[in-house]
């Protein structure tokens, strides 16, 4: 699995770490049935899953992307939506998270109303304001049964300083040819987050060059408040 880049030639510079595949860890949360599994599957596998089931506990998916010539591994942690799993089970997975994706279902007003509770959840897990968050309204292909209007969602997103994306993990634009890429926002959503994280500079953990030994954690430098591009730092939580 180790996507180790060339690692030997670092001799000259003392300060720079050796080139490694950086890892961006993103947690995806939201009510049961809003489509968290579909979204993460879509992004990582490039297609809509035929059957998804209830997620029990936490599932993990990843994808290697290239941003400005740098290979970056995006890890998505897909969590169970049912409330009882949040408290004792999922907390472990909030550790060292680099970004949060909140998902609601545009056809289910209750899932939108739950968002403050999910934001509170993040707060409880001590995710600092520097951790980027985005809001995703899923299932917008079901235009006839929309319950959460874009304006209301945008207001909420603004109030919490998050960008809003409306999307459908199951895009009707794909014409069934199996090629779903670029036919909707799913790709853009996660790539936006990745770009944002990349611009946050020293960040984070990376993978050791030879996939052995412990993971090196180079944290620090995340609190560079100067960076805060528009609407990224979440003021209220």
């Amino acid at each position, binding site marked *: 699995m180790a996507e180790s880049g060339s690692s030997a030639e670092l001799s000259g510079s003392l300060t720079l770490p050796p080139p490694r595949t950086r890892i961006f860890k993103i947690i995806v949360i939201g009510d049961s*049935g809003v489509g968290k599994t579909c979204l993460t599957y879509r992004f990582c596998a490039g297609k809509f899953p035929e*059957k998804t*089931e209830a997620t029990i506990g936490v599932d993990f998916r990843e994808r290697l992307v290239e941003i400005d010539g740098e290979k970056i591994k995006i890890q998505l942690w897909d969590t169970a939506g049912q409330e009882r*799993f949040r408290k004792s*089970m999922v907390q*472990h997975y909030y550790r060292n998270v680099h970004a949060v994706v909140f998902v609601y279902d545009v056809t289910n007003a209750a899932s939108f109303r739950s968002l403050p509770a999910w934001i509170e959840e993040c707060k409880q897990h001590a995710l600092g304001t520097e951790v980027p968050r985005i809001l995703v309204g899923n299932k917008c292909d079901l235009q006839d049964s929309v319950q959460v209007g874009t304006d209301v969602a945008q207001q909420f997103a603004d109030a919490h300083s998050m960008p809003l994306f409306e999307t459908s993990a199951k895009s009707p634009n794909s014409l069934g040819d199996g090629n779903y890429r670029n036919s909707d926002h799913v790709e853009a959503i996660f790539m936006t987050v990745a770009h944002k994280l990349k611009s946050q500079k020293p960040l984070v953990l990376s993978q050791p060059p030879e996939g052995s030994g412990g993971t090196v954690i180079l944290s620090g430098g995340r609190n560079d408040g100067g960076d805060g591009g528009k609407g990224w730092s979440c003021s209220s939580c």
Partner: protein
Amino acid sequence: MSTARIDRASSPMNGRQDGETRRKRKIADITQALNVDPVDVATLRRMAISEGGLLTDEIRCQVWPRLLNIPPHLLDQEPEKVERDNNKDYNQVLLDVQRSLRRFPPGMPDEQREGLQEELIDIILRVLQRNPQLHYYQGYHDIVVTFLLVVGERLATVLVEKLSTHHLRDFMDPTMDNTKHILNYLMPIIERVNPEVQDFMQQAEVGTVFALSWLITWFGHVLSDFRHVVRLYDFFLACHPLMPIYFAAVIVLHREEEVLDCECDMAMVHHLLSQIPQDLPYETLISRAGDLFVQFPPSELAREAAAHESMATSTFKDFELASTQQRPDIVLRRRRRQKQASPESSTLSPVMTVAQPSTARRFVRLAVMGLTVALGAAALAVVNTALEWAPKLDLFP
């Protein structure tokens, strides 16, 4: 490495004919055990554990109720009507059942499947309605569907209700604290057999959530071949309620080389372990799990499991409030408290002594394990333990 490949030990290859003969004999034994008065439950348990389990769904319809000690008169009860409106769990249950397509046989016509899904919803809501102390969890539907497909709605309702108030009771608490506590048994079991694997997992900080769905669905959520699921249910129904966690440990141990070759990182190890191989040698693993249970009974692991828990006493109130219903986790707690209270265990720090089992002892145990697997002795011992457990409340005499 030291638990070398013993996969073949339990099933000598004597050809198909021999297999057919054994199968016939087993069916005869089961029939006889069912026909004696009183029913020979001990034999039935042994049959459910031993190679091949209970063989057919027809047999399961007769034996599963016996394994759960269900009085015959309950079996004829017509299931009552279910109130779907105003049911607090209905939405969640509906959502989960609608998505559970994979649990049904691949070739089943949609109409038939949809009918079964309706029945599935009814069974779940009925049990919850009758037992307001029980809380639905995602994954419960994976258990119920297995019963529905094997024994049909009426019988499934009775079996699931009993199971929910016993084996699954801890999972159905208002919170998952007790479930988490049971998961804490996983690492001590792994440590006893292969400390290197346990060390590695500890270093990776992988946690135990990868095994959560295994535990609370009895593997129904993660195994795609229904025959394997049912085979495991034979085993679990005949055994102690904590057996699924031993089986989880055995799966991890079975993959020890893969685990140790994996990058020592939470995500990677979690990913590896949560992708359960579909071609596991089930019979061998079952036998091994039974073996581990006998060698490292829950009572022996209770203290270590508790050490993983940051708030060991927080559920004390739950314990006090619990009915006389037997709940694996509760019994373990009681056992632990009794141990702590008893004077003879007080001299040395027991945590220290348990935490460092001598290598010699471990080797002896591994040797014994190989032997018992080969002889099928483990199955017998587990039956005995289960028997001690079944009729009364005191789990660990």
